[in-house]
């Protein structure tokens, strides 16, 4: 057999049927559901008189529009103030109960942002196909599985048939060699990649992240990177299996145990790209040259190193780019040519499926420890990605560090990442955010997002403006 990439192997092992017209029937091992993209799918099942094909494959949890306020959360689903949000969460509970689907309900241990929950519970395993009605499903690829977002019609399709009708993607490899500098995180690496290849750079491709930078990275860090493959245009991002992958999997709730685990691990270790495997597209970058990154505009490719300046319209090469930069500067209320570190922030958001794992909590806490949030900051939210992350962080006393520094410690959920609940930006407000999207209005109507790492967002909370975490001393200026 010819040399294959990890993606090729995952594809081949899930192929039920290859059709002559180029489409294929792909088997889906794991399906994760949440309240926003599932109600219409369940309704479709009901209308057609269909049942889920298999139950032991689905896992559900509410995350997108639940409250993160501890008091509101304590009141349960009935305590969700917004009527439409409450109905949606209730509908997920009802649907899961009705169809017998395993769900971690809002305040149950296990609940969390879908992409934090799946891996930490061991529902996501190497070698699986994982889908969810959410584009950041690419996150799970950090465990060398084939994971991608699907639309609601496909949610229904997978529920009903355990398969997707799909087409094979092209292979892309992004290799980052070298060693990351101090203060440079997985988030900076992926932002730098997106700045390099653009938001459409990965369209039609499955990206494999390779090279020493990813080998040296923790599994949590790899998740941060794979999470944002979609911001680079790719539905799939993944990293090959190594011993870190196997170690991460061991002992998790839904993982195989004992001998079965060893047998599984033996197979997982084959999930690496063969030495001569051919990639349709190759990108190479030097990790040693990456500085902490910050987005200045309204698309995830509008990113500069924190030491850099905001781009100017006149420096853009073509008319479409000029228009884009002009519009973004206007929306962001920024001056082209000014240093990005001069930008004052109003709110800080540390959370989202990109950066709300235990490592992110630790990193942010280590920066704010012993300091106080700047008076100019209206709100600094820390939202752990799941109940398990929250519990672990509290066991380590991180919640106290945040609270003492003046940040809010919240209940798990998507929160200000997309502002479907009460956590949102006001018009014109700038936010130092660890989330993944800086589109217009993403964090609230008229809100202005600056994407960055948890360390950088934590430092911005203390200084009140964007600051290079490598030079951060805690002095307020």
């Amino acid at each position: 057999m010819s040399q294959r990439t990890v993606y090729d192997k995952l594809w081949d092992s899930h192929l039920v049927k290859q059709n002559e017209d180029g489409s294929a029937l792909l088997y889906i091992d794991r399906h994760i559901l949440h309240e926003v993209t599932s109600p219409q799918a369940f309704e479709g099942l009901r209308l057609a008189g269909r049942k889920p094909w298999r139950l032991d494959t689905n896992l559900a949890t509410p995350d997108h529009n639940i409250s993160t306020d501890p008091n509101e959360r304590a009141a349960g689903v009935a305590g969700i103030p917004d009527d439409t949000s409450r109905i949606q969460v209730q509908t997920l509970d009802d649907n899961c109960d009705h169809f017998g689907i395993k769900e971690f309900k809002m305040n149950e241990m296990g609940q969390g942002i879908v992409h934090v929950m799946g891996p930490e519970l061991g529902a996501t395993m190497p070698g699986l196909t994982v889908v969810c009605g959410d584009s950041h499903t690419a996150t799970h690829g950090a465990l060398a599985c084939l994971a991608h977002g699907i639309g609601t019609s496909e949610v229904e399709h997978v529920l009903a048939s355990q398969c997707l009708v799909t087409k094979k993607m092209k292979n892309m490899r992004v290799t980052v060699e070298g060693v990351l500098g101090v203060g440079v995180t997985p988030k900076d690496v992926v932002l730098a990649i997106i700045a390099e290849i653009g938001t459409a750079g990965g369209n039609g491709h499955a990206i494999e992240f390779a090279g020493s930078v990813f080998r040296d990275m923790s599994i949590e860090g790899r998740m941060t990177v794979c999470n944002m493959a979609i911001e680079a245009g790719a539905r799939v991002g993944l990293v090959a299996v190594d011993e870190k992958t196997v170690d991460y999997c061991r002992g998790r709730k839904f993982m195989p145990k004992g001998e079965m685990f060893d047998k599984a691990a033996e197979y997982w270790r084959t999930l690496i790209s063969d030495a001569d495997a051919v990639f349709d597209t190759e990108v190479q970058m030097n990790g040693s040259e990456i500085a902490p990154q910050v987005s200045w505009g309204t698309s995830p490719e509008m990113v500069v190193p924190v030491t850099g300046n905001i781009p100017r319209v006149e420096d853009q090469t073509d008319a479409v780019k000029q228009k884009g930069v002009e519009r973004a500067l206007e929306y962001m209320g920024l001056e082209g040519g000014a240093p990005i570190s001069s930008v004052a922030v109003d709110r800080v958001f540390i959370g989202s499926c990109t950066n709300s794992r235990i490592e992110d909590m630790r990193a942010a806490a280590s920066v704010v420890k012993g300091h106080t949030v700047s008076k100019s900051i209206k709100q600094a939210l820390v939202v752990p990605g799941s109940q398990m992350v929250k519990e672990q962080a509290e066991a380590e006393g991180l919640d106290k560090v945040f609270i003492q520094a003046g940040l809010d410690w919240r209940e798990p959920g998507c929160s200000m990442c997309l502002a479907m609940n009460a956590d949102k930006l006001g018009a014109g407000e700038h936010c130092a955010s660890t989330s993944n999207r800086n589109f217009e209005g993403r964090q609230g109507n008229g809100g202005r997002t600056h994407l960055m790492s948890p360390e950088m967002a934590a430092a911005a909370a203390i200084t009140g403006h964007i600051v290079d975490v490598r030079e951060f001393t805690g002095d307020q200026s």
Partner: protein
Amino acid sequence: MKAFTQHKGLVGPMDRANVDTDMIIPKQFLKSIKRSGFGPNLFDELRYMDEGQPGQDCSQRPVNPEFPLNLPRYRNASILLARKNFGCGSSREHAPWAMEDYGFRAVIAPSFADIFYNNCFKNGLLPVVLTEQQLDVLFTEMYADEGYQLTIDLVQQKVVRPNGESFGFEIDQFRKDCLIKGLDEIGLTLQSTQAIKDYEKTRAEQQPWVFGAIK
């Protein structure tokens, strides 16, 4: 699903790159548990001057007079001209639902985000990929000609301009067939029930840990 064979209609512009799904349908409308009724909130933030909320009567809201699709000349447009990477961002199918509910039957752009592109086909909305140059031609003609219409012929895979000239486009055979016949994809897949069961059997023998994990 609505079948699509050929469509002739008024053309409207969305003349910017990287239009994301949040721009197409802002997140507050995702709280609906229905599939329909998103049309009045299509491009909500660009289209209205106030912040839209679910359940509002949109006919009472202040519209943005500068947003092209609000101009009388584009009212009832059913074909949208767009720029590169249209539909990027989230996987929300609410985006094509909103476009379809508004009255669009097709979008023409130089490129689409993968998930959005895929979602269009499930909802009788045809995404057509033409080159940047071809789009420049269509945009120019549209701006110059009030009441500009195009004909999109899916069977022949071409976009026919008012002068009779046409641009051909590529499309997957499977997607094309489903759209032309308005097929129920799930029903189609379930015709392969035996193949799926056979696959499961083999896989369970080789990788038993994959099954029975979630309980």
